[in-house]
């Protein structure tokens, strides 16, 4: 539970700030990348990896570990950041984003410690996570499966096949978090193809839905700690977020879905993010 003094929340906020610094660091090392969707997910990932998930960074294949699938695989800079900060991978890997033979590319590679699936082609993660949750049930294992999905990603129809199946099997051990930053590659999601009414869609598919501010760490922690929200249904957390969160010029614009980052821009971003 959240302590009244807010120690946990302030620690997680600090770690999320470090995640954002590492996102920019990796993307600068690569010369550019998906700043927007990585930064919008930073608080959620920090809460999962540094608080909610039962994981063993020194034993990444521990069978009882909670699973996390980054369905929006283009946010791999954020995943790399939490994996490094948690100790799954060496911190120096963050400086090898896109490098020749690097384990750390634009999208997650299952061969990397802590990475559960090679994602990035959109609309795959929810099916895979559904399989993991079913695998837990069949083998009577207690782990929980989390999957982070982009809002634009919900255009992919396969998500809704999986949503139907997960509800059919009453997978209370499965939580989908929608990073609802409202922007995809070409502009605003709802101008490209509307996903609204989003909460109603998930409810209609049989999911327990909660909407939160995905940058309010108390909100995020409280919701993750309350899982499962319903013992008969999978949970969909619609996290309202800001694309590019944390750096003013990158916030809330499709231009920073993916963009180049040079030393000058990097210095400006770090100055805004503040000290680790």
């Amino acid at each position: 539970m959240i302590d009244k003094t807010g120690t946990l929340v302030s620690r997680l906020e600090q770690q999320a700030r470090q995640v954002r610094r590492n996102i920019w660091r990796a993307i600068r090392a690569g010369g550019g990348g998906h700043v927007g969707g990585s930064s919008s997910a930073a608080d959620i990932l920090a809460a999962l990896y540094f608080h909610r998930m039962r994981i063993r960074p020194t034993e990444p294949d521990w069978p009882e570990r909670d699973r996390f699938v980054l369905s929006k695989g283009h946010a791999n800079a954020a995943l790399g950041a939490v994996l490094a900060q948690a100790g799954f991978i060496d911190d120096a890997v963050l400086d090898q984003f896109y490098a020749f033979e690097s384990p750390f590319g634009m999208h997650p590679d299952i061969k990397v410690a802590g990475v559960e699936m090679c994602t990035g082609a959109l609309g795959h993660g929810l099916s895979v996570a559904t399989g993991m949750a079913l695998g837990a049930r069949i083998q009577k294992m207690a782990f929980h499966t989390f999957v982070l999905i982009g809002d634009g990603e919900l255009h992919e129809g396969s998500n809704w096949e999986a949503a139907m199946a997960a509800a059919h099997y009453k997978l209370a051990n499965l939580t989908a978090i929608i990073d609802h930053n409202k922007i995809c590659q070409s502009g605003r999601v709802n101008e490209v193809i509307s996903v609204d009414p989003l909460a109603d869609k998930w409810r209609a598919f049989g999911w327990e839905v909660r909407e939160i501010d995905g940058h309010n760490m108390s909100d995020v922690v409280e919701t993750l700690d309350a899982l499962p929200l319903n013992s008969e249904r999978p949970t969909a957390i619609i996290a309202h977020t800001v694309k590019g969160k944390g750096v003013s010029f990158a916030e809330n614009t499709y231009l920073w879905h993916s963009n180049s980052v040079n030393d000058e821009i990097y210095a400006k971003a770090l100055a805004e993010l503040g000290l680790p």
Partner: protein
Amino acid sequence: MNAPENALAEWRAKSANQTRLAFGQALLEIGAREPRAVVVSADTQDLLGIRPYIERFPERFLEMGIAEQNAIGVASGLATTGLHPYVCAYAPFITARSMEQVRNDVAYANQRVVIGAAASGISLGVAGGTHHALEDLALMRSLPNMTIIVPADVNEAYQATLATLDIDGPVYLRLGGRVEEPPVGDPEAPFRLGKAAQLRPGNDVAVIACGALVDMALRASDLLKKEGIGVRVLNMHTIKPLDRDAILAAAAETCGIVTAEEHHLCGGLGGAVAELLAVERPTRMRMVGMPDTFAMVGPTVPLRAKYGMSAEAVVDACRALLAQRR
């Protein structure tokens, strides 16, 4: 072996000669032998004859409905938790429709997922082009890590399914539809993954066939034998990894190679053999298979003949090679 021998013999005796049903029957034995096995269906419980499995292992059965993309993603997720999923599906849909899931979630992630793909080729002839799978081998062959098996008869389908117990990676098992697939070989002969079975000796010309075309190759060989022509017949049940040694030996010891398959001439067994020989030992070839067109509607057997997939077509291909013999 836990499955009662007499039960299997009894099933064989009364069952139609259809490889899709042999797969379902083999799953019963796999369920008994491998506690990690789990069967995933895409609304194909009767197509692959898995109701006996479901009755016996209900806790290790998952129906995913008419949603092939999700079925493959789920199977991949199951495999990551240590289970051994067997996906039951229609060949045309589980390959072409779910290609990205098969490529990324299964082949690229290198997960232990077996796909039992029924109704391949033009086995659903009357269903029309939407339901034919004449490009599935080309799609699956292009994926690294994938093992591809095309059983020619019920016995081989059963044994090949059991062989997946020892394959630690993705497998595509190509099965037939509601059409008779007569026995082609000795039912007691062991199935050896990646090793072609020589069903007829001969050093004049060689026919390398898979699936339904193996029976036609045998008939062609028997016809030409009456003329004193020795036609070697190789049942190339494993398309990937390919039995290079058997192909190179056939190329070295005969005047040429005929390939025969129920698949487009592009990208299937013929393509695989040609790719090998072009590099290692350029050899005269003829390819029997589906030309570059969509098939019309019709019962499977006359449809095969119309598009040049017949014993007669194999004979003609052999004669063409013999005529060019230097």
